[in-house]
């Protein structure tokens, strides 16, 4: 890809429709080629939608004073409550080895299905024998010699 290295920030911008046409096309091409990044995109969207769904709350009176002073958080306890969204996403993301194990398990299920689950038998009906069996049954209670004569001739199955 391209001049735009895909990052989560870029994805956020993509979700917020803040990219120009070229960057947007690059991102979409990368997403189309990677189910992993597609999953990350879903998370970004989920997070954004979750935030937008939160109720709007007015801050305490001194909040804006502290903002203006450049230190919005009052103490260490408040600072501990801050969540780094990027690291949280990384934590929740399925590790690569997990994807590999899941893929291998799926492949194993397919192989076991093919090998172990009984498949319908392939049958080659014995045309000549069944033909004779029919003639034999037909001869019972019927003209015997004309029925048996077809059994007594060598079997020939056309061209």
């Amino acid at each position: 890809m391209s001049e735009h290295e895909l990052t989560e920030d870029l994805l956020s911008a993509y979700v917020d429709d803040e990219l120009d046409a070229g960057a947007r096309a690059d991102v979409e091409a990368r997403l189309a080629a990677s189910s992993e990044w597609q999953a990350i995109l879903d998370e970004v969207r989920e997070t954004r939608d979750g935030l937008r769904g939160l109720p709007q709350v007015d801050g305490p009176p001194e909040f804006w004073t502290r903002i203006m002073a450049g230190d919005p958080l009052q103490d260490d306890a408040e600072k501990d409550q801050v969540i780094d969204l990027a690291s949280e996403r990384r934590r929740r993301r399925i590790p690569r080895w997990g994807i590999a194990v899941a893929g291998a398990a799926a492949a194993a299920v397919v192989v076991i299905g093919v090998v172990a689950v009984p498949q319908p038998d392939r049958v080659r009906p014995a045309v000549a024998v069944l033909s004779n069996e029919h003639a034999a049954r037909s001869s019972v209670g019927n003209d015997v010699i004309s029925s048996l004569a077809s059994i007594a001739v060598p079997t020939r199955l056309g061209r």
Partner: protein
Amino acid sequence: MRLAGVRRLLPATIGRLALIVAVVGSALLVIGAEATAGADPEALLRKARDASATTNVAGVVEVRWVDGDQVFVERVGARSRGDAYVVGRGEHVAVARDGLRYAADDGVATLWDRSVQSDAPAPGAAWNLEMDDPARVAGRAASVVTARDDDGRIRARFYVDRSTQLLLRRDVFDRRGEVTRSVQFVRLSIGAAAPAVPQLPGKGSEVAATDDVPDGFTAPDRLGAFRLLGRYRYPDGTLQVFYGDGLFSLSVFEQHGLVDWAAMPEGGRPGEVEGQRARTYSTATGTVVVWGEQGLVLTGVSDAPADTVQAVLPAVANDHRSTVDDVVDFVFGPFGWE
């Protein structure tokens, strides 16, 4: 003078002789015509069935059948004594005694219950029977019964011995009126001291009649004009459902699985039965059609005309269809989806 008398007498004598010959010939023709016109074709065919079991014969039978543009002709020896029959010899011998049948060709001996044939339809149940002009087969005088379909086409002809009612010849016709299969005596000695019939193998593949249709199998009561006459299980699990229409018979053999098309015998012609891939063979016995339907391998065998067989076999598939199949057809049918 003497010569002149002879000359006078000669025309008169020849005239009288000609008159006698004409009268006797006419009388014979009238008697023959009356015998033919008065005969009941259905009764005659019934007698022919029975005569096979009561007439000792020794002769040669010719089997002729057509497969596409090829014609096959084979001759086999045949003899019977009482209720025992032997046809052919060596590797290709078929032996019968009571309900037991043995075919050396495939090494299969089967035991059938004679009583199952008792409810077979009448010979004229599905065909229009009529007496035809007398004929000769293997040097013997024969009454001839012709079977026509509802469109008036000749589909079969039976030649019955005038003195013993033994069936001497049987021809089957296609829709164009061509003979596609024929079995006839070409040499025949009736009532002769026929050679003894060999003993059948003590043990064979005993076929068991069954009233039940196992799960996954199918046995419609009717296939067109053919009526169900019996269901049989083979030791390998194959189900045979046997039908008759009075003149012809039809079997459908059912086996679980899928048709192994790659392993099917050479020959035959590709086709379809109710939209399913099929292959049709022509054998000395008759038409053989193999196709697959919902996990079953189906093999239809019949001595009836090939087009008749093809027309009735879809009823096997229809009987096997589930309600879900019918709903899917109803919903998607108009769109041509399957």
